[in-house]
């Protein structure tokens, strides 16, 4: 597949001033998404995934501010510098978003057809009646049975999975180039989760939409994504293709995340403990590597100096002084000493 750049996040850094000091929910994050690509953004709760995605949409809470060096390029425009009016033309039109809990993300007092049609009339010069026809097609496309009758249903009349399909239909309404799905399956039953992921995958293959798939569950990623970004405490700690990440995770955090997904490491392989400890308080981050408090391979160097994201010979980019070897051993060479970037 030829790679054509769609979105480029550069040095994204957000901060929230608090009386006790600054919190940086996203701290110098850079990544890109190519056309038609599914990129997974993975990390535990609180690692800054939602703030990253809302930065792209320009919908972060007003408490969250951006460092001036941050930029997010889409169609040669820096979204962070756009006027609100121009940003509105992009939201829902070129970049659409699917949220975590379809229970609360749909307006409870409007029929679903109306909510989908709204997106269309906002961005396209069509009559509301014609937009409803398109809404019906979209409902069929996302697999809502008996869609014609459902058009006038209210969200509470649908199941969770159906509601998330409606959200997806809404996101598709204006043929966006990019869909950001922030934990689209977290609030759903396990069986429904797979259906929703399959649907996203299918739509991506059919229409070539790029998807930024945000999740805290690596199990979700394996089947769906092309590329994986692993995020911890506001920073990207590892990045690679889905094969490289799963076959050869370099960061102890990535490996820990995998260990917490049972089906990835079958009973034959030795089961690793899920990551011990808790995410550090964002106001009291360690001096060196953010993961040092929970890493079983950490050394004195890790607690003193923060590693940077560098390319490893195996293909991934990783931010660790001692990237892991295949069997989960601590690396033989130190990143800085060998300088393999």
């Amino acid at each position, binding site marked *: 597949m030829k790679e054509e750049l769609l979105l480029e996040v550069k040095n994204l850094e957000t901060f929230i001033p608090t009386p006790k000091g600054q919190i940086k929910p996203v701290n110098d994050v850079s990544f890109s998404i190519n056309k038609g690509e599914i990129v997974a953004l993975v990390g535990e709760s609180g690692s800054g995934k939602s703030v990253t995605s809302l930065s792209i*949409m320009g*919908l972060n809470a007003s408490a969250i501010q951006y460092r001036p060096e941050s930029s997010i390029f889409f169609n040669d425009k820096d979204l962070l510098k756009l006027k609100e009016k121009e940003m*509105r*033309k*992009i*939201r*829902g*039109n070129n970049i*659409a*978003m699917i*949220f975590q*809990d379809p229970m*609360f*993300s*749909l*307006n*409870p*007092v*409007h029929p679903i057809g109306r909510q989908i049609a*709204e*997106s269309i009339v*906002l*961005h396209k010069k069509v009559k509301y009646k014609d937009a409803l026809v398109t809404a019906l097609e979209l409902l069929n496309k996302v697999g809502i049975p008996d869609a014609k009758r459902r058009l006038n249903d*209210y969200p*509470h009349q649908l199941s969770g999975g159906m509601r998330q399909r409606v*959200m997806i239909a*809404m996101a598709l*309404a204006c043929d966006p180039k990019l869909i950001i799905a922030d934990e689209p399956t977290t609030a759903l039953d396990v069986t429904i989760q797979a259906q929703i992921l399959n649907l996203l995958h299918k739509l991506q293959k059919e229409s070539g939409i790029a998807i930024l798939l945000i999740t805290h569950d690596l199990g979700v990623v394996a089947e769906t994504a092309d590329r994986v970004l692993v995020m911890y405490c506001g920073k990207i700690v590892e990045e690679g293709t889905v094969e490289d990440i799963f076959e050869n995770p370099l960061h102890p955090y990535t490996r820990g995340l995998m260990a917490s997904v049972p089906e990835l490491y079958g009973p034959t392989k030795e089961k690793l403990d899920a990551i011990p400890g808790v995410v550090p308080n964002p106001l009291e981050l360690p001096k060196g590597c953010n993961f040092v408090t929970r890493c079983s391979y950490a050394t004195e160097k890790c607690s003193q100096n923060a590693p940077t994201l560098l390319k490893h010979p195996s293909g991934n980019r990783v931010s660790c002084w001692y990237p892991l070897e295949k069997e989960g051993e601590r690396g033989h060479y130190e990143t800085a000493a060998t300088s393999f970037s």
Partner: protein
Amino acid sequence: MFLKYLARRLLYVIPLLFITTLIVFSFILLIPGDPVLALLGENATPEKVAQLRQQLGLDQPIIMQYFDWLKNALQGDLGRSIFTGQLVEEAVFSRLTVTFQLVVAAMVISVVGGMFFAITSIYYPNSWMDYVARFFGTLGTAIPNFWLAMLLVLFFSLKLGWVPATGFTSINDNPVDFLKGILLPAISLGAMGTAQITRHLRSSLMEVMNADYVRTAYSKGVKRWRAIFNHGLQNAMLPVVTTIGILFGNLLGATVVIETVFAIPGMGQLAVNSILQRDFTMLQGVVLVMIVLVIIINFITDIVYAILDPRIEY
């Protein structure tokens, strides 16, 4: 489905009406001061007193009196004023049209004013409009309405002479005079309601505007005013509908004071006079009509709520 819901709501009304009227009826008869003595004067002979008492049915136990009254009331007969001999239903009905116009005018002021203040305050946060709305939302409920009424009269009637200080013209007779006459009483009455609705809708809207579905709306590219009017308002109004329903009853009660201040010949004034004269048949009629009104309003509130919120189970 909806009709069935209506029918069920109506069924609730019957026992409610029964119980409330019984309670009110009993209380009215327990008001200190004997209507018979009020009619005959302090010097009446005991025989005369006993005779009139029997004539009015006051020698019966209260519960018997109640059922007698109820039986007649169900046939549309509320009796005659023991003081003037006027038919109670006629007197009450003519007063009701006056009070109804006053209360509706005050409700319009409350709802329109409350929505205006709440919405501008949310749309322009921390602007002077926002501060006015917040200040007013707090102050408006604290000012006694009779005091506000007197201030308004002093300024707009006595000093500026723009509108009459007292009196009432029905909207059917002369709409312009109606507006002039109703303005100050309706504002005095509606200030409290405006403040209540402002405060309640403002906080409700503030919460709703942080809801996930409003964020979804923004993610579709809607403007702020559209997010407020199209997505926020209907949701934010849900709890406020109840406030508005209760407000109607409060305003109805407050007409007692306002009609006295402005010398408006409405139900409130009739109620005050009936109490002063111990005219218990008239008072029973007044209170019955007020209760029925409040129950009807509650009924309408439920229906409006069901229309606004599709999640209501019929």
